[in-house]
């Protein structure tokens, strides 16, 4: 929460779909799953699905209405990233800066495999 939010809050009621689910359960699930991956701008460590900030509510409403109109969640993500940068999305991208992250499991697996392979070979030599 920012200090401004602590001092004052908007008196307006929440946007229509901020705290109201979509009527179609499949669309609601799509919208909710997507909201879990979008970072709140006011409470920066929460997703907008978890945040009570008024701006998060407005964004939830916007997302639900867009999904009800048939927009794809990834389209909405692109729209948000265009405005706020990668920061807004919790979903890791395939940008070069994240290549070490994607490579880590493979590297660890290969390293572990080599270690095990070495042990087995040594043990075989000892027992032979």
């Amino acid at each position, binding site marked *: 929460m*920012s200090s*401004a939010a602590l*001092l*004052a*809050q*908007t*008196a*307006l009621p929440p*946007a229509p779909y901020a705290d109201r689910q979509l009527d179609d359960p499949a669309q609601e699930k799509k919208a909710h799953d997507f909201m879990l991956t979008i970072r709140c*701008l*006011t409470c*920066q460590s929460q997703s907008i699905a978890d945040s009570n900030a*008024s*701006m998060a509510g*407005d*964004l939830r*409403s*916007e997302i639900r209405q867009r999904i009800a109109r048939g927009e794809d969640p990834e389209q909405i993500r692109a729209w948000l*990233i*265009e*405005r*706020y*940068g990668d*920061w*807004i999305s919790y979903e890791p991208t395939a940008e070069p800066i994240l290549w070490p992250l994607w490579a880590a499991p493979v590297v660890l697996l290969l390293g572990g495999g080599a270690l095990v392979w070495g042990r087995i070979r040594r043990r075989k030599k000892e027992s032979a």
Partner: protein
Amino acid sequence: MKGRWLTWLPLAVFAALALLFVGGLLRPEGRVIESKMVGKPLPAFALPAGASDRPALASAQFAKGKPRLLNIFASWCVPCAAESPQLMALKQAGIPIDGIAIRDARGDVDRFLARYGNPYERIGLDARSSVQLDLGSSGVPETFLIGGDGRILHQHIGDLRADDVADIMDRWKAAQ
């Protein structure tokens, strides 16, 4: 000798990570999220009037050859009241300023302007923060400089302090 080094390696890695995490916990980052829309054209919008004695605001009213300031504010926002003398000073210097009131009601905006002064030529009412989201703005108050060609040239996040006025004036003059 080499083996002894390896024995201590996991502990060293652990200590380094522990230091990193404790450091992060002690100094949580209060991050400012800059709009990625700076340099791009102002998104299209048409908002209803936010105050009773000022006309409504639409994106078409920018891009008319002269740079303008676009101030994002709200009557419920305390730093917005704090920055009003700076906005009045900019207005007095001949800089045109338009406002967008976020999650607000016209009566509240009227009272706010009567109390703190009205530096705006036009005021739009953004009841659902939709234009704010379209601008890549992450809070109130924020001030955008819009060039005469309708492009967003600069974003100032947070309230304008007395020592920010000269910078905004210089940027506005440079944009002409």
